[in-house]
């Protein structure tokens, strides 16, 4: 649609025209703000940014200490790109083990513009209570909790 609009503007005599082909979807997936009267909640509005993180070179003891009551620790690099995830099982393992050796690599992540309803449907299908949220280039935004998604979706 936007290519045709750009061409149409040129036929109307506009000479300085740009086409943002990735569009509104890309903008929202990167977590950038949108304006409007949308009645559905997006997970960017309920994502908890203070989720515990650790580095891939840390030990399980460090990840466990940071995870505290969260029951999970997200493994990120210096750019906050998500590399893996530690669940309760991994956090309860040998404290001297390296995170790199026990983490679950490549966890499922969700973009900030996913609706709370879509998030809940995915959580139901996959029996999840927590889900990491990242920008479209993989950087950690935070964690969505089922109870927050249920509240936002009006359940």
């Amino acid at each position, binding site marked *: *649609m*936007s290519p*045709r*609009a*750009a*061409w*149409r*503007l*040129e036929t*109307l*005599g*506009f*000479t*300085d*025209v*740009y*086409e*943002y*082909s*990735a*569009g*509104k*979807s*890309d*903008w*929202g997936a*990167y977590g*950038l*703000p*949108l*304006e*409007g*009267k*949308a009645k559905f909640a997006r997970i960017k509005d309920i994502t908890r940014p203070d989720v515990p993180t650790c580095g891939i070179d840390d030990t399980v003891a460090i990840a466990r200490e940071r995870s505290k009551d969260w029951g999970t620790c997200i493994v990120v690099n210096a750019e906050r790109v998500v590399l893996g995830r530690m669940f309760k099982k991994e956090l309860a393992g040998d404290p001297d083990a390296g995170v790199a050796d026990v983490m679950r690599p490549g966890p499922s992540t969700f973009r900030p513009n996913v609706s709370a309803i879509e998030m809940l449907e995915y959580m139901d299908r996959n029996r999840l209570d927590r889900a990491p949220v990242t920008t479209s280039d993989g950087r950690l935004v935070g964690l969505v909790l089922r109870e927050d998604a249920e509240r936002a979706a009006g359940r």
Partner: protein
Amino acid sequence: MHKIVGREDVQRLMREGAQIVEVLPREEYEDEHLPGAISIALKELDAKSAAQLRRDRPVVVYCHDFQ
């Protein structure tokens, strides 16, 4: 000929005063749109609707994604 740009270029163009135009149907614009964007649906894009745009400033058009 128009240029295809990414998110960072759009942010820069916004700062430089570009006009941002969503060409999706009006209802979709009302739900959500880029900050400061105006609505001119593709089906309504003609000389009359385009008259609200300034020709001395850049124009960035977008829709939902690669449609």
